[in-house]
Each structure stands twice: as structure tokens, then as C-alpha cells.
């Protein structure tokens, strides 16, 4: 902190002890402190003497007060009871229940999820650790037991909420960070469930081990750990470290030679910790993690994430089982719901780790839709890291199989969510695009084309055909990602009158030339038939997705020959439009996010012309287009060759210009007619 000065200072009387961290209620701008476990003090900035401010004595010991940004402070008692401050102040002496008997609270955290406060705390009893999740408004309390770990125990916790899922991270005494997922929507009965954990990170790097004392989560791939780094045979050094959990690397470490209290806070991209006798604040920024960044070779942050590879060994049998079963699934249709329910319960009872994914999916095959999706979501959240990709593949396959058997069933949003958030490939879920094509789910197809690196040419072609044949009116109602076209297609075509050319001081020397050049300019103007986009923005965005997909000419060409002539002309018209648009700019690139490059446009244009050569020549409506295209290409070629020619002359002129001496005084004859 470059500018440290106390803005306020308050102290309790001699003999009293402040027993939990003071918090600020951001709604009322009041401070709340607890001293001697039971005495609540509330005051404002302008109050000077803590002795004279509001005081309330409670009936039970307070563990901690959590201040939430909306909803006011929440008080957690040592017995596990929870009250909002408002409720508590109405009757300070009210009875507070004891939930946790003789367990001791080790850590607690509060969140706001969907307008309601959620409190999570961890307790310990005889080496066992328990996690409680309480939703205040629902008045629901869930107790979980943390899976035991031999020879080590949790030292520190941290948690965050995302997508209705609490992610609890635990720092264990064996110098590793474990990840525990707790679903927030828990509809099972009040049973003590055991939480399984997965190893997130080992805090060791090239022989030295970090003895962490506290840690915070920075983003989905980064955590910061404060602790002492001890190499064998050397004195340990206290330091602050940032780790990348995706690649298991130590991103950066900062030594703290003056020592630290071992506590670390993080607010708004700033670390707060004590270093020696001062409070130190450090700003940080986490780049989106990529392998290149992790090994320090980041060149272009724009490159999209590389799809992860599939571990074929883990995929193995389960998927085979599923796909095998799918072929004979029709027989199982007429089972009663009652038996299904019991079956599901049986599944839930078993520890998820012990059941293989394939088995689980097999069991779920005929469950009702809601239960089915619910279970799949759970499965995805509980999955272990190593064979995660394979699991997702299985999940999608299961979904697709269900779609196939039940024509009315199509989980559009669920599929979209999976494809958008996970790194998938075509080979992992080969039927997905086929089903999407059948259902004409163009948005899903667009995302697939953008994200899958290995789409067969036949499917690419089918997508193209579907996109071209689908009506504009239908597309206008469909949600399609337009970011690749929004920058160059004018949504409205009526502002043609606006003067776009800017001339310095109102004159343009080229204007004088205009008269003499009309012959040439007329010719080029005629050729620009490509001024208007022949397709709507939605269709353009879909076609761009096709242009972006990878293909091999040899395999694509036979399919492309089957494209109906009208559609081929429309596609060529669009490619021509793109080409004209590209040529408007000196760097021949289109603006926007992931627009087609000029090479892609030219390649597809050549490919299309190759495939439909005779058709194009014969078709009367293609004639004008081809002639325009020919003229435009010829004009471009001429333009570039002319540019090459005048380059030398321009250089000579430039040289002459520099030589012109600034005459100081002269008398010249000037004739104005």
C-alpha cells in the first residue's frame, strides 16, 4: 500500500477481547464486532468511543459474522446455528440451536446464490471432517462427511459457487490441494453423504515442497498459496505463489523475507497479506491459461484453445457397452415408472466412484427425462479428471441414443451447453452432428463446426447444404452466433447517401483527375455487383462456420458436386461478396471476430467452380455472376500489376519532393482565368 494511514481506530476496554473479525455492513455502512464471544457491537464511522455504541448481548457464542454484498450480514454461532443480523437484533437473547454437538468449526464462508444467502462451514471431530451447507431462506441444512485421507488432514479451505455447484478446495497437510464438488440443488433426503475428493494440485516443484498455510482461488485455472517453500537441505523461505492447476505448474513466486502471519486475503484482483510489520497489497492478473503460457512461450493470445486429446485407454469398454446396448434398446421401453424409481435410488445409494460410468449410463437408459438429465449433470460434475473427456463422450452418446429412440426428445440447451463448455471432437461423439442435422439445430451445428477439429468432409458438406437450403425467414427466428459477420454486413442498407470520404480541408486533389478517369472507374463500378450481401446475416454466419472448418479437397470435391445448382450459385454469390468486401481493405482482411480469411474464400470459390464447372457455364443466371467475377478478378490483377509498376515512379517522385528547396522570396507570374 503506497499510502497507508489509519482512517479510524476503535478499541475495546481493557480486559475485553475481540473474538471474531470485524465486518462492514455495506448496506448501512456500519461496522460489526463481537467481543468476549457474545457481545455484539455496531457502530458507524463517526462514532469515536466503542464503549458508547450499540451493544447487544447474545445467548450463544459467535463463531463468525459474514457480510454479504446484498442481504446483510449473517452470524454463524459456534454451535452451527445461523441467523441473519436483522433477525438476531429483533431478539438478541433468542435461543440458538446447537447442530453440531461436539464438532468444532474450522472454517466458514458465505455466498449469495440466486438472491439467497448460502453458508458453508467445515467442522472437525476426532480427525473426521464434516461440511455443512445451509441455505438460509430455504432453511435447509445438508451435512456431508469429507472422505478420509490417510496420514494427512485438511489445513485450510476455500470455496466458490458456479453453476449451482459449490467447489470446495482443501489444502491438506500432505502439501496437496484437493477439490470437492458439492451440488447446491440437493434433492435427496437428510442422509449423511460422503464427499469424494480429487487431487487438484501437488504443491511441489523440482524437489522443493511448499508448506502452504492459506490459499485463495483466483480463477478457474489458478490458485494462490501462501506458505514456506522448503528445499531439502536448505532453509525454508516464506513466499507467495501462484499455481496453474490446469498444467500443474508454479506460475510465479514472490519471496517474503520479512516473514508473514500466514494469512492471505484476496479482493478485486488484489492480494492482502502481512509482510513483516506492514500490510502488503499486490495486484495480480491471470492470463487465460494455455500450455504455451504455462511453459512461457505464449505468442498470440488470440489462438483458440486446442482441443484436448482423448485418452483412448480409459474410453474403452464403457462406450462400447453403451453403443452396443443402444442397438437393442427398443425392447426395454415398456417398464413401469415405479421400478425405474427404485432402480435410480439404488444407483444413488452406491458410491459413484465404485460404479463405472458405462454401467451408470446403462442403468439410466430408460429413466424419465428429468431424472436422466439430472443424473448426467451430476455425473459430469463428479467425474474424475483423467478420463473426463471420455466420460463426456459417453454422456453425449447416451443423450444422442435417447434422441434416436425417442424422436420427440431433443435436449437442445443441454447439448449446446456441453459442446460450448467442453473440448470435444467429432470422433468422440460421431452421432451428435447427424442428429443435429436431422433436427436442423443450426446453432449447435455452427458451434460444432467452429470447435470440432475433425469433421468428415461429408458432414461438412451436409451442413453446407442444409445451411443453404434453409429459409431466411426460419433463420431469423433462430439464435445464431453473429460475431463473425456483424462487422462487415450492413444490417440496414439505407445509409448509402452518407458521405464517407473524408477530404483534408474540403478539397481532394484526386477530384480533378476524376473527369479524365471516368472511363476506367466506370468499368470497375460496373463490376461491383458484390456490394450487397446475397444472404441474411444469420445464413452468412453459418456459412462462415463452414468456411472455417478444416477439409481436404480430394474428399470434399465429390460431395460438393452433389450440391444443387441454385444453391451452388447462391454460395458462389456469397463468396464473391466476401471477396469484394475483402478487397476493399488494403490488408485484405475482414473485420470482426473469426471472419473468413481471403485464402479460405478463394479456396472455396475455386473448389466450388471446379465442382460445378459445366453447370455454371450452362446456367443462365450464373452467367452474369461469372462475368462479374471474372471482371473483378481481372481488375484486381491489373490493379496489383499497376501498383507494382508505379512503385518505382512513386519512389522517384518522393526523392524529388525532398530535393525541392524552400525558396524564401520570389516574384512569380500567376494567371487565374
Amino acid at each position: 500500500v503506497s499510502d497507508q494511514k489509519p482512517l479510524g481506530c476503535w478499541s475495546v476496554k481493557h480486559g475485553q477481547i475481540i473474538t471474531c473479525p470485524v465486518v462492514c455492513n455495506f448496506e448501512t455502512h456500519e461496522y460489526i464486532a463481537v467481543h468476549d464471544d457474545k457481545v455484539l457491537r455496531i457502530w458507524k464511522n463517526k462514532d469515536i468511543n466503542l464503549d458508547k455504541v450499540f451493544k447487544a448481548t447474545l445467548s450463544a457464542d459467535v463463531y463468525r459474522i459474514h457480510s454479504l454484498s446484498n442481504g446483510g450480514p449473517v452470524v454463524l454461532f459456534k454451535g452451527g446455528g445461523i441467523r441473519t443480523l436483522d433477525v438476531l437484533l429483533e431478539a438478541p437473547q433468542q435461543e440458538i440451536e446447537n447442530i453440531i454437538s461436539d464438532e468444532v468449526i474450522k472454517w466458514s464462508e458465505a455466498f449469495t446464490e440466486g438472491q439467497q444467502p448460502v453458508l458453508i462451514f467445515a467442522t472437525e471431530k476426532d480427525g473426521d471432517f464434516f461440511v455443512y451447507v445451509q441455505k438460509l431462506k430455504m432453511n435447509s441444512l445438508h451435512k456431508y462427511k469429507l472422505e478420509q485421507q490417510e496420514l494427512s488432514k485438511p489445513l485450510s479451505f476455500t470455496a466458490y459457487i458456479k453453476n449451482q455447484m459449490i467447489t470446495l478446495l482443501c489444502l491438506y497437510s500432505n502439501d496437496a490441494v484437493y477439490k470437492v464438488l458439492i451440488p447446491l440443488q440437493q434433492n435427496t433426503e437428510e442422509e449423511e453423504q460422503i464427499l469424494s475428493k480429487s487431487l487438484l494440485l501437488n504443491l511441489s516443484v523440482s524437489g522443493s515442497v511448499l508448506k502452504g498455510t492459506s490459499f485463495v482461488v483466483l480463477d478457474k485455472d489458478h490458485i494462490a498459496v501462501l506458505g514456506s517453500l522448503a528445499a531439502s537441505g536448505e532453509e525454508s523461505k516464506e513466499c507467495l505463489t501462484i499455481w496453474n492447476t490446469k498444467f500443474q505448474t508454479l506460475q510465479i513466486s514472490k519471496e517474503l523475507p520479512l516473514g508473514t502471519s500466514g494469512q492471505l486475503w484476496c479482493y478485486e484482483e488484489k492480494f492482502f497479506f502481512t509482510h513483516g510489520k506492514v500490510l502488503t497489497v499486490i495486484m495480480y492478473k491471470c492470463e487465460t491459461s494455455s500450455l504455451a503460457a504455462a511453459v512461457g512461450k505464449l505468442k498470440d493470445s488470440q489462438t483458440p484453445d486446442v482441443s484436448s486429446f482423448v485418452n483412448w485407454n480409459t474410453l474403452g469398454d464403457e462406450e462400447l457397452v453403451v453403443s452396443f446396448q443402444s442397438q437393442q434398446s427398443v425392447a426395454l421401453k415398456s417398464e413401469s415408472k415405479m421400478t425405474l424409481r427404485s432402480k435410480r435410488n439404488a444407483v444413488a445409494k452406491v458410491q459413484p466412484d465404485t460404479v463405472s460410468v458405462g454401467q451408470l449410463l446403462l442403468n439410466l437408459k430408460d429413466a424419465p427425462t428429468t431424472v436422466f438429465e439430472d443424473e448426467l449433470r451430476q455425473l459430469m460434475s463428479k467425474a474424475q479428471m483423467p478420463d473426463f473427456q471420455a466420460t463426456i463422450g459417453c454422456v453425449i452418446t447416451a443423450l444422442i441414443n435417447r434422441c434416436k429412440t425417442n424422436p420427440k426428445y431433443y435436449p437442445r440447451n443441454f447439448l449446446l451447453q456441453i459442446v460450448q463448455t467442453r473440448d470435444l471432437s467429432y470422433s468422440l461423439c460421431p452421432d451428435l452432428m447427424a442428429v443435429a442435422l436431422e433436427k436442423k439445430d443450426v446453432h449447435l451445428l455452427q458451434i460444432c463446426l467452429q470447435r470440432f477439429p475433425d469433421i468428415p468432409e461429408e458432414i461438412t458438406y451436409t451442413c453446407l447444404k442444409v445451411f443453404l437450403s434453409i429459409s431466411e425467414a426460419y433463420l431469423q427466428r433462430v439464435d445464431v452466433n453473429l460475431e463473425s459477420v456483424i462487422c462487415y454486413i450492413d444490417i440496414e442498407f439505407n445509409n448509402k447517401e452518407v458521405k464517407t470520404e473524408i477530404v483534408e480541408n474540403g478539397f481532394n486533389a484526386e477530384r480533378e483527375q476524376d473527369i479524365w478517369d471516368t472511363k476506367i472507374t466506370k468499368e470497375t463500378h460496373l463490376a461491383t455487383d458484390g456490394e450487397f450481401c446475397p444472404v441474411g446475416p444469420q445464413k452468412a454466419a453459418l456459412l462462415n462456420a463452414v468456411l472455417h472448418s478444416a477439409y481436404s479437397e480430394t474428399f470434399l470435391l465429390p460431395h460438393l458436386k452433389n450440391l444443387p445448382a441454385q444453391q451452388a450459385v447462391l454460395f458462389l454469390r456469397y463468396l464473391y461478396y466476401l471477396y469484394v468486401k475483402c478487397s476493399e481493405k488494403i490488408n485484405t482482411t475482414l473485420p470482426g471476430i473469426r471472419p473468413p480469411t481471403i485464402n479460405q474464400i478463394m479456396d472455396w470459390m475455386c473448389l466450388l467452380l471446379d465442382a460445378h464447372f459445366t453447370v455454371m457455364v450452362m446456367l443462365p443466371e450464373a452467367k452474369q455472376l461469372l462475368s462479374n467475377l471474372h471482371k473483378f478478378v481481372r481488375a484486381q490483377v491489373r490493379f496489383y500489376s499497376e501498383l507494382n509498376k508505379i512503385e518505382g515512379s512513386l519512389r522517384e517522385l518522393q526523392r524529388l519532393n525532398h530535393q525541392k528547396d524552400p525558396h524564401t522570396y520570389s516574384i512569380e507570374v500567376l494567371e487565374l482565368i
Partner: protein
Amino acid sequence: SGQTVQRIMVNYHVQKVKRECIVWSIAFLSSGTVVTSDSFGRVQFWDWERGTLLESHTVSTSAVLSLAVSEKEDSIIVGTSTGATYQFQLLPVKMGSLEKRWVRTKPFQHHTHDVRAVAHSSTALISGGLDAQLVIRPLMEKMQKKGYEAALRKFTFPHRRLVSCARKARLLLFQFSQHLELWRLGSTDETGKDGEVLPLCRMPEHLLQLKSKGPEHIYCSCVSPCGSWVAYSTASRFHLYRVQYEGGGVSIKKVPKVPKLLLPAYQLQFSSDSGSLFVASARGSVHVLQLLEPGGCKHLHTFRPPSGSPEAVYLLASSADGHWVAAVSGDWAIHVYNLKGFKHHCMVPMYSCAVTALAIHPVTNNLVIAYSDQQLFEFGIPEKQYTAWSRMVQNCGLHKVWLERDSPITHITFNPKNPSHILLHDIYMFCVLDKSLPLPDNSALLMNQSTLKQLPETARQRQLHAFKICKKFQPLLFADLLDENCLVMVERPIMDIKTQLPLPIQQKKFGT
């Protein structure tokens, strides 16, 4: 109370650096945030009540010299000594979030160094640098459409007269920031064809240099048509000199006891007989001083608009016959006064743009006015109404290309031998407006001189139009007619200005 409420040390806790930190600019936002820019290249936001640092942005390795806040206080522009300007915007941390933070958004590099002044209008960022450029950079997001208004504009010269000409004596007076220079023009006895450079028989002669005392800049200056009087004014003082030419030598004598006038003077103008001097001054007033031989003057009269005016007069024009003087004040009102009876004659109908130049025709006593939107008007002073030609111009409209120029007409003069000619110029062109010829319509080429010269005599007649434009001399600081067939043009090459400016900041870019 006059007490210090808060004291903020900007370099508090900056160790290692022993340099002194200078706060170059400061702004106080209505939210209670103090914004400072300092010589360490930082823009900092402070809590006024607590005196603590809220945010600090290091924008440059060199000093941040100037700072301006938009009226809505959601945008700040800062100018640095490297010539770059940066925009800061108060933006939500996340989409839809209520928490807002200052974010450095747009960097612009339109100056070579030292941006000493910045201003923030509702649609543009304006910056002025020591490289003698004034730049208006429109904020594209505030523009409704791409078009002429959205163009970047750069101004090199102030839009006011810096050179004055003594026609009869063939002298030019140049106004610099701290001194004046008087030159006699050279001459030739040859003639030639278009474009030829003629040999000089007499070289131009630097007659005298008049240095202004004190730190004040010269605000305006003028030399009388006969060349024997030179006047100039700074913000607080007015000076009048009598110049005498004896043989080859020049002597100059300061006129003692000039009348105590309401200063400062914004514009000076001698009458065409060199008998009196008009001084444009504050609150719409024009002082008339009578010049007395052999070197004295007295205050004759002060004109004021009948209804009063809070704005100063910034442009003057007097008639050749000594009957009229026209004055333009900052509220864009043009008042015409009668010099014979010392009374207010009339007011030209108000127009919605600033007047950039005006002059009274020596023969017809028509007042020609150029406005900042490039419109031209001709107002008959004796008749107190616009002339028929002016009405015709308004009906037909001026050429599109003419209206799209963005540098204003800075000077108007006339050719007494050819009353239908009006001579105008801006920085990029000089124009003879021939009222006897038809106005060009939008389909015609406005700049047709080079085309005309290629046409045979007979074909020319059909192509002729009223605007005869010459762009040969650029950047054109001043142009005036000396006699029937003699023009004087003053170019001011930008390179000349640049060489006199303070050196840019030295930065090592390569090596160690």
C-alpha cells in the same frame, strides 16, 4: 474557513526515486474524487475526504502534463510529454455491474511531443501540443453516422490575422509572439508568362525588429497603409510607434502618452487614409483614435452597440472613404457605425455561425462577410440590406466542395480596378470570386483552373465560373492585393516552425 482540509502527498512512499514529483494538472469530480496527473507519468484518483489513493494508472514513462474531464464526468483525457493522449473512461467492471472503475481506453498519438493542453467536449477530444498543432479527435461512439463531422481535424495556424500589409508603402508587418518585424517587399521590372519566376531588381529588405518588453505575448498588431504608423497590443498594454523613412535609413519613435483605453485590444485597424486607428476592445466597444503629425494621438470617440454587449470585438473593417467601420463581437453580432456622425448605423441580421473575416468594398461600400460554415454574404451598408448578388448566392447555394472545406476564410480584400472581384483566402487556397460570372453548380468542377488552362480560348468561356481558385501556395498565412496586378502571398512552412520549437523528449528505443 481558509483552512487546509486535506493534504495529499503524491510521492509519499515512493522509495528509490529521489526525483521530485510535480503534479501538473488536477481535477475535482463531483463524486469527491480528486484526479491528478504528475511528472512520474501517473494519473491518480484520490478520495477527497480521506486523502487516500483510490486508483493509480501509470500511462507513460514521462510526465502527464494536462488533464480534462468530460461534463458527465465519465471520461477523462490526459496529455503526456511524449505527445500521446489517453482517454480514461468510467466503465462497469462487468457487463451490467454497478461497480465502476476508471479504465484507460483509447491512446492517440497525434502530436510529436508535449501535449500542454487538452479539452473534452461532448463529442470530441481536443489537444494542443508544443508541436504547434491543435487536434480535434471526434469520439466515434458519440457520432451518429460516419461522415464529415467524424473526421479528425488538425489546426496549425490560429484563425486570426498575423500579418498586416501597408499597400501604398509596400511593407509587410509580421507578428511573432514577442516581437514584430517590418519588411519592405522586393520588386522586379520584368514580366513573364504564367508560372515563371521573375528575376528581382530589388531584394526584400528587413527594415526593423520591434521587441515587446516583458513576458506578455503580442495579441494583435497593425501597420498603417502609408507605412508610417505601427501599433500593437499585449494583454495589458497598447503601443503606438511612428516610423520615418529618411533616405535608406529607418527611424522609429514611440508615441508618448497614448490615451488610457479599456484594454486589452483584440484587433487593430488603421483607416485607409492612415489618419485614424480603430481599436477593438471589450464589451463590444470600438475606440477611435486620431493620429496626429508629427507623432501623437488622441481619443476621438468610443462606439458601443446600442443594446450593449458582454462580448469583446474581435474583427474590424473600415471603408475606404472613411465613412463606415464594421465590428464583430464574440456574440457574432456585426454592428456598423457611421464615422462622420459618430453614431450607430445598423446591425447586420444575426447568423448562426461565427464570422471569420469581413471587409468593406472600396467602391460600393458593400460589407462582405465570411462565416465559419463557409457561407458568404454581401450586405449593402447604405441600403442596410443584403445585396441582390448575396440573395442570389443564398438561393442557388454554394458549391458542395466549397462548403466542405474545413479551414475558415481568414482574410477578404478587393481589387479597386475591378469592382466585381472579391479576393479571399484560407490556409490551403487563394480565391478570386468574380461576381460577374455564374456560380458553379454541384456537377461542375470547382477547382477548374488546371482544366481551363488546357482548353482553347473559345471552349473556356462555357467552363468559366465565379470561383477562381489557386492552391499553389500552402500553407498560406496571408494574401493581399498591393495594386491592380500585384498580389502578396505569405507562406509559412511548417518545418520552419518545427525547427524553432523546444526539442522533443529524447528516448532511447534501441540498444542500451
